[in-house]
């Protein structure tokens, strides 16, 4: 009951926010929040740390951007196409990566992502260093003109909610139950007759597709797709968001994305841009050394202890 209320309040806030806050910024937070939630699905619920998730974000972005520029499709179709492309790429990467665990998994995903990074750097359809510029936002369903930032924001909010709901559903599904079991004791799950790699693989695909969804949406918001989204720094950033917010919590990544994006926004606006990496690095170090459960994890602990 309490959580129902909380959800309603949050939703109300989300609907009212663009009246006060710059909608493009809000849309950016939502895109990264979705990305971080998708990433957390893999890390928090499957126990797999991917160090190459940027590649899915970027792939979604490029596909959607390219289609919007070249095909005349409506934005929702282009987004779906980007999502599917991300899912397919995830299927290929996942097949290779889920054979390994822990640090090995992280390294393999990192290297695979780097492979694609260089491909995108050279492939003609991505625009290389320039990226895809001037991606039109188009009209959603051929009707709603997204050129207006406020409208765009609500469109993004809808996508975010859909993605978030899917993640929530996945975690609390028969599939999610098995994922949990696999995380707890992999060899026992195998001995009960579950093909562990298949489950991890599916989780990987879902996570990749949702990351691509975030990237596709982001491209529309900024009317631009670029290499930054595929770079391994971006893979690091999403880890940071998740870590700051709280690994394995449902809304942790959302909070983390909000914090990190605000911080970047604040820093890159001025001449502090220089300090961005130093500060992000420092936040990483502090989080790992003394704040491993993240903001939401810490808050939950506090609430448990005091109420």
């Amino acid at each position, binding site marked *: 009951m309490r959580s129902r209320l909380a959800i309603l309040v949050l939703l109300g806030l989300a609907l009212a926010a663009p009246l006060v806050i*710059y909608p*493009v*910024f809000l849309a*950016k937070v939502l895109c990264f929040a979705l990305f971080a939630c998708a990433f957390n699905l893999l890390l928090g619920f499957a126990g797999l740390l991917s160090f190459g998730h940027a590649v899915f974000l970027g792939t979604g972005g490029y596909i959607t951007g390219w289609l919007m520029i070249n095909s005349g499709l409506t934005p929702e179709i282009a987004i779906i196409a980007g999502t599917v492309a991300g899912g397919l790429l995830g299927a290929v990467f996942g097949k290779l990566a889920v054979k390994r665990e822990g640090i090995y998994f992280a390294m393999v995903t990192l290297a695979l992502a780097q492979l694609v990074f260089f491909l995108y*750097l*050279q492939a003609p359809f991505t625009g*290389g*260093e*320039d*990226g895809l*510029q*001037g991606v039109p936002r188009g009209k959603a369903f051929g009707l709603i003109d997204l050129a207006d*930032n406020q409208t765009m924001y609500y469109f993004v909010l809808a996508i975010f909610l859909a993605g978030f709901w899917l993640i929530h559903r996945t975690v609390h599904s028969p599939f999610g139950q098995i994922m949990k079991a696999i995380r707890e004791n992999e060899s026992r799950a195998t001995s009960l007759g579950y093909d562990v790699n298949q489950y991890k693989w599916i989780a990987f695909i879902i996570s990749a597709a949702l990351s691509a969804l975030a990237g596709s949406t982001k491209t529309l918001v*900024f*009317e*631009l797709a*670029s*290499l*930054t*989204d595929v770079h391994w720094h971006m893979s690091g950033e999403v880890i940071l968001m998740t870590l700051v917010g709280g690994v394995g919590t449902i809304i942790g990544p959302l909070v983390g994305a909000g914090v990190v994006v605000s911080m970047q*926004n604040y820093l*890159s*606006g*001025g*001449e502090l*841009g*220089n300090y961005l990496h130093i500060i992000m690095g420092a936040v990483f170090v502090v989080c790992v050394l003394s704040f491993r459960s993240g903001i939401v994890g810490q808050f939950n602990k506090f609430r448990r202890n005091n109420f």
Partner: protein
Amino acid sequence: AATDGKIKIGVLADMGGTYADLCGPGCVIATRMAIEDFGGKALGKDIELVSADSQLKPDIASSVARKWVENEDVDVIGGLVSSAVTGAVTQVTNNSKNITLITGSASNAFTTSACSPYIAHWTYNVVALANGTVKQMVNEGKNKWFFITADYAFGHALEGVSMKVIEANGGETVGTVRAPLGTTDFSSYVLQAQASGANVVALANAGNDTVNALNAAAEFGLTDYMDIAGLLVFTPNAQAMDPDTAQGMRLTTGFYWDMDDQTRAWSKRFEALHGAIPSMAHAGAYSATMHYLKAVDAVGTDDSDAVMKQMKLTKPDDFFARNATLRADGRMEHDMLLVEIKKAADRKNKNDIYNIVEVIPGNKAYNPMLPSCAF
């Protein structure tokens, strides 16, 4: 862009990256000098200056520009180095009808394929570079060219334009290789150049890439029997080159601090603030800002269309812009300089790096205007 009667200038430059010395903090300083020289006020209000680091990333630049014009009432964006960044920013500003003063980028696209009524492309462009350096060398009989090209819009444009100039003057291109932006080890490209049978190796890159490529060429003995043409060399880069390797190298620039008293006077003031002599982008940023502010003052509004019209009507004229005009397509046409890097022995101090070989008049240096871009 809302006309709120208040002038706010945004300088978006590379504050810490490969091009930081060309148009980074220095471009902010130059812009501030222009504002102060103008009197600090326009339309009766204080002129505001904001700046940000593009980090040389189109997406960062694009989102900063968007935030500036949509949410922070910035009227005009200047600075701008790296064509990828400039392209992304102009996408935003063209849409929002804000003026862009491009002072660091080289691609000629901004007055051709990507032209817009709101762009003023100031300092130089790839065509001017090729028409200066390349033409002269081909005419001297250096007819077989090999390109080491920076793999992004600027490099491609510079390479393409230069090839046309080579062909038009009877030379040929025997090969090209594209190196990613920020390459540090050029050895393998140098080897390819060596095996190509060319007599000139053209470096269609900029900043550190040029310096590194030149160093590798020297290390592998390439300089012993081939000429190196640095197609785009800014003064800080020229200073960073080993004089023994670089001496005698020809290059084209839009500005040299030691040209005459006028340039020296401004450059000394700049050096006092910045700690180094100005590059052409720094001088260009001052000149462009000043011209913009004068136009605002003249029309009495910050409305982009009116201001731009005025900018094109009056001829820019200052220590930087010689025999200049701002064409209808947004190209600022002015005299370019063909210079030669001095021998170590001839240098009086560390800033004394060029001999001016020739002044190329603007109409010879720049590309002709396209009818479709004559706004």
